[in-house]
């Protein structure tokens, strides 16, 4: 019985969300507000049970070794609540500054490794080696020259004119767009499978038309 109710509720709200394809309507509005409200409440419960309780409250209450260190992030977190009190609201800027600084500090070397050095490594490929299939040779040539052209496109301090920057940036934007086209098709295939999943649910689990 409870399963049947669950299927009906899921089906009605699936249709409610899909009804947006026609126009914004009261059923969509109901579904929207419910999903926003429930997900927020659920998020708070999950944060408390999976983060605050096991990783902060319990270690401090049980006096776990080194747990006093947790007081530092706890205090930083509590400083956010000072936003509710105009007199001390400025204190909430400390955790923000800490997070911005830490985010940039941690992100910079990671980006250097993943987005620069690793990409550079992948671009340093032999154009031809004995026994290499012709499609790999063509692929390597296109990749190296395409990378150079795309980099030229992202030069901001030079006018995109002349044989190097002008032609290079034009080739670069073509390479980028061809890449986006391939990504578009690949991602759309994934999205279609999501749609098929919902239709299977509606026609199978709910209406039992599909067996």
């Amino acid at each position: 019985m409870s399963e049947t109710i669950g299927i009906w509720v899921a089906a009605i709200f699936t249709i409610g969300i899909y009804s947006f394809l026609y126009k914004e309507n009261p059923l969509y509005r109901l579904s929207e507000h419910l999903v926003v409200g429930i997900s927020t409440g659920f998020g708070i419960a999950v944060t408390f049970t999976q983060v605050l309780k096991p990783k902060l409250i319990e270690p401090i209450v049980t006096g776990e070794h080194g747990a006093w260190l947790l007081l530092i992030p706890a205090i930083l977190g509590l400083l956010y609540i000072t936003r509710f009190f105009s007199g001390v609201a400025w204190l909430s800027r400390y955790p923000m500054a800490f997070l911005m600084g830490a985010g940039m500090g941690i992100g910079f070397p990671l980006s250097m490794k993943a987005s620069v050095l690793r990409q550079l490594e992948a671009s340093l490929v032999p154009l031809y080696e004995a026994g290499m299939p012709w499609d790999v040779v063509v692929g390597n040539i296109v990749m190296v020259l395409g990378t150079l052209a795309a980099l030229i496109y992202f030069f901001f301090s030079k006018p995109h004119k002349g044989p190097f920057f002008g032609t290079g940036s034009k080739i670069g934007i073509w390479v980028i767009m061809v890449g986006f086209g391939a990504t578009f098709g690949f991602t759309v295939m994934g999205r279609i499978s999501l749609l098929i999943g919902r239709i299977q649910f509606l026609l199978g689990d709910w209406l039992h038309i599909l067996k």
Partner: protein
Amino acid sequence: MLKRVPAMLLALLLATGLAWAQAEDPPPVAADSEETLSVEESEIAIDTAVSPGDGMIAPSNIVVSDWPNDAGDALLVTFDPGSETGNDNFIGYTIYRRVQGTEEFEMVGFVELDEGTSFTDGYDPDFIVEPGVQYEYMVAATYFSGAEVSSEATAAQEVAIGQLYHSGKTRVLLGCVVFLGLILFYFYAAQRGVEMYLRPIAGIEAIDEAIGRATEMGKPILYVPGLSTISDVATIASITILGRVAKKVAEYGTPLLVPNRDPIVYTIAEETVKQGYMEAGRPDAFDKDSVFFLTQSQFAFVAGVNGIMMREKPATNFYLGMFWAESLILAETGSLSGAIQIAGTDAVTQLPFFITTCDYTLIGEELYAASAYLGREPKQLGSIKGQDACKGIIMAIITLGLLLSLTDLIAGTETLVWLKNIITMPVVD
């Protein structure tokens, strides 16, 4: 009274948490006790009638060394194989560990037969390695039936020690120093008054136009700063642009709507918008309800923003930051609502969707550069010039690789491998 509500809620939350945490723990379940096997238990498990035959050899020569370049929380255990040739029941090695001076051994891992004869202790968060603690190890050849043939208990030759410097990331450090050095060089050059050219980018030039359009139509502007956290570079770039947009919006007196998915981004976005209004000399015009938190759930957030688009009918939509699968849903709805749309992200998989549905799209690094374009401050222009110089270095290395590849082809040398080794090979994950 209303001012006390947050404090009361906080007190209630803390009190509930403390009461919960102080509640008696349930008695340990049997499974917990099964995880920790003593030497005696492992010996009891040996069933000589079932698996190990006469040719059985126990693992030996256990060598424990400190895992390099870590925080002192891992040890590498290697051993000589112990096996019984041709016995199909032999499946691998169980690794046991105890703190020196204690009685009980604890099972900390299992190495399958095809995984070699080494084990990194400390990766499993359930069995952490403490820095500086002297451990003893025992390796047991394990059979399908559960039977085990254990080695001698061996004291670890090294203890786990943390290193301040990760020697495998020297190239990363050098890269950071070179790139930062170039950016700082051009940064100070710009401060000294050196003229710097920036080529026009249509998407960025359209931002002012889009704000003006909303002002003329008397409709709000919707600004979505992405769905990622503040540690994402795209979010930081978006927040900087939000500051510029907020200043313009304050000058024109146009309503602004900034829905947020991440609570931290929300607080920073609110501060940024408030700052923008102050810089425009109109702090009184700031509406604190204009920047709001919706929900952390990805598609619930999209449903909420879509509803806002259809009800409020903003004249201009900005989607700047990090986006995932929701990008097309957001941009398509915005397109239906008739708004002019400007998007920008460094998510390669989402850019095609923005390009097809938005009027202007900032591709990747154009998003990072947008703030400097909008502000036109010498310092930021200098940083753009510095980033271009970094790109120039990358292009030079790729071109050198191309030439060396041709040289290798003609002369039969291996210079490309040499270059690759210099640039990236020593980078350790």
